[in-house]
């Protein structure tokens, strides 16, 4: 199969480094991945092309990049599926500075992982043998520890784009891996200190649920769902006195009122209608969501069966 691959390049050694596009055409096997095609270009045509890759089997997390604008792993994307109008377009992962060609700088990524105290912190005495834990709890955690830290989610996160201080989907999913671990925290497995820290500004409450990370994640980790689970854990632990939690309470109130969520009202309720700077800070996210077709309809209609939903919410509140 002949493929044309258009690569966004960046030569840091150049006198005035600038990004530019370059097209290559190469012959690959029918079941080749985008990574196979890139390696072939590098090996046969242009050794100056830099990218990270190692395992070729979606486990080392090296080869995340944007393929046709979408974050993901080159080694997990069949080349055939990635051809659009005769061309595969690849760029470095987003939300990270570029070092060279498709190689990005992960320093910020790892800083954020570090910020969530990324190791198990059991409070009680250590047992002599293993901790007793249910297989279900371990299987559940394995769904999160399946994260290979490739950065695809961070690349496509719409919040990070406007607020680089946001912990981001990878670090928050990593944090959830501990808060949901029955071995971490107090004897009931509640990691209160972690939840408090994660509830601060730039933490779990700053996710706008745009789903970009869920789409980008090549390992089915669903970072956004983990962030939502963190919020639930925080509410369960009684951590309600902050913007985020008030946001969640507002959520319950709004849904209770009209049966579905009016996302446009949500920021107002959360930060309070008089917090103008905070409100304004939501605007870029809103604009970007609109571009991606994710902003809710401007007219908020009542949905059918609203009474039932209201009753449900009442029940949940109890």
């Amino acid at each position, binding site marked *: 199969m002949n493929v044309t691959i258009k690569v966004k390049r960046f*030569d*840091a*050694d150049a006198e005035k480094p600038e990004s530019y596009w370059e097209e290559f055409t190469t012959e690959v*096997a029918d*079941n080749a*991945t985008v990574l196979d095609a890139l390696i072939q270009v*590098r*090996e*046969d045509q*242009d*050794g*100056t092309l*830099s*990218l*990270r*890759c*190692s*395992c*070729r*089997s*979606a*486990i*080392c*997390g*090296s080869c995340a990049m944007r393929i046709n604008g979408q974050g993901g792993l080159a080694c*997990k994307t*069949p080349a055939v599926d990635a051809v659009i109008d005769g061309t595969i377009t690849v760029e470095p992962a987003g939300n990270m500075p570029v*070092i*060279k*060609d498709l*190689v990005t700088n*992960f320093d910020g990524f*790892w800083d954020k992982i*570090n910020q969530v105290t*990324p*190791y*198990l912190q059991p409070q009680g005495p*250590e047992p002599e*043998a*293993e*901790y*007793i*834990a*249910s*297989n279900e709890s*371990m*299987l559940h*955690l*394995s769904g999160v*520890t*399946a994260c*290979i*830290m490739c950065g695809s989610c961070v690349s496509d996160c719409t919040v990070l784009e406007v607020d680089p201080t946001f912990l981001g989907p990878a670090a928050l999913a990593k944090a959830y891996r501990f808060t949901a*671990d029955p*071995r971490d925290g107090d004897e009931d497995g509640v990691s209160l200190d972690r939840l408090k820290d994660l509830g601060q500004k730039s933490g779990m409450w700053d996710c706008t649920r745009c789903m970009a990370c869920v789409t980008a994640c090549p390992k089915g980790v669903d970072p956004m769902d983990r962030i939502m689970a963190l919020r639930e854990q925080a509410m369960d632990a009684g951590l309600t006195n902050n913007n985020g939690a008030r946001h969640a309470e507002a959520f319950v109130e709004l849904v209770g009122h009209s049966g579905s969520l009016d996302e446009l009202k949500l920021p107002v309720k959360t930060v309070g209608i008089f917090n103008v700077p905070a409100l304004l800070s939501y605007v870029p996210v809103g604009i970007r969501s609109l571009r991606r077709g994710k902003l809710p309809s401007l007219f908020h209609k009542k949905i059918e069966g609203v009474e039932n939903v209201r009753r449900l919410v009442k029940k949940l509140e109890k």
Partner: protein
Amino acid sequence: MLEHDVLVVGAGLAGMRAAIAASSRGANTAILSKVHPVRSHSNAAQGGINAALSDRGDAWEDHAYDTIKGSDFLGDQDAIEVMCKAAGQSLIDMEHFGVTFSRDEEGRLGTRAFGGQRRQRTFFVGDFTGQALLHVMFEQLLKSGVRSYEEWFVTSLIIEDGIVAGVMALEIRSGEIFAIRAKTVIFATGGCGRVFEPSTNALIVTGDGMALTYNAGASLMDMEMIQYHPTTLAGSGVLLSEAARGEGAYLLNKDGDRFMKVYAPNMLELASRDVVSRSEQTEINEGRGIDGCVLLDLRHLGENVIMEKLWQIRELGMDLVGKDMIKEPIPIRPGMHYIMGGIKTDIDGLTNIPRVYAAGECANVSVHGGNRLGANSLLDTIVFGERSGNHAAEAVKHIKYVDFDEQAKIKEEKARIQSILDRPQNGDRVSKLRLDMGTSMNDNIAVYRDEEGIKKTVNDLKDMKVRYQDVPVDSKGKIFNTDLIFHLELGFMLDVAETIAAGALERKESRGAQSRTDYPDRDDENWLKHILVTQGEDGPQLSTSEVSITQWEPVERTY
């Protein structure tokens, strides 16, 4: 100058375990790796890690015997005893660090069956045990505060009067060359799979540490012992874990027969890897394969088991060959996977170069002998990683740094690298020479070998080493010049390949992974010995050493 008591080169499981151990004993420790630690190849381990837990009625002696028999009696029994005794605690340590091991109904660690073992003692996390362990080890590394040089590439060892004084390293991001002074250096640089094409190993697994220490005077041992794994994908060579057979998958030939009943009537698909790979190769050679492959069939396990315990493997099948193992069998064949050989060390990881240690796949203690049991390698990395780290941390209390002229060393190394960058753009491309090397190795030093084939590869390699001197690089820049890295790695691989071929030619018997059609029997009288390779004036120099036998005399090996 950058300076550390203990410098660990390599940040896979063995390296990180060593660094954590050394720093917990108060040594000024640093770890250096050519890729970020979590990108290391330990990630790729799918199936699990072995340990005999006594509170479960298992005994370390049984694990030791299975290991020794698996090794075809070439493993050193003193080292195997050390590993199997330490296994339980090492495993529990990993659980306490946070690994999300699979559990049984009572919430205790659960096991799965693995090849060559008489009972279940393989602990696992789904089918991504290596990744689960590696990421948790990295968490502990962060907790330890050890200085980590990420994306730094060691280009050579600094040896003064036969003693190591440090290493020369290239910071890949900046392209700068540094000398790092160290009282002790622990090599944990992993295997050398890319010497073969194809291989299950990641692209970064290029035998650097073996070549670096070999060039500095270390002995490599039993390098001919190359494991071909029974279940790899044709083409890419990507692995489908033994966990599949551990959970009950069948191997079928083109007639739909479970052919292992002929070769290993008791253990069937779960015989030792060398045995299963040979059986498959025989089926294929005798015309009962399909396009050079046999079939791995999971269908009878059912969707639930596959989705809970083998889902990554299923994904690989779908991504790489477009087949869903829930619905259809998948073609597989023996493929290069692991090297039992490596840098010769004692049970504390010390090599024959003073103050240089080695641990993990780059080392040979020797616990795997002629054939490694599945799930014993992860164990090897953490047990001997920890022991090396501990030993080095104690040793540095009594020794001083060795002096050298930093500027002179940097100048010399820069000049060497510049001369590569300055080569004219003629001669073979790196990729071409690497493919030629890999193909020759895979043609002649594979499941079955004979003198004629091995000699051909020995000669091919001589020729390639000459050609290598003219291989240019396209990329002349400093920043993230991967082209230069591949060039240096190819040099390391050619050195390692030569030692593998030399060992294979020397061992005139069939034992473990060395299956010589011209010497089909095991010959304990002449070859119950390790083969040592050191670098001589004109190529590898060979010698032998005794195998340690503590309590298990060699017997005939059947499964």
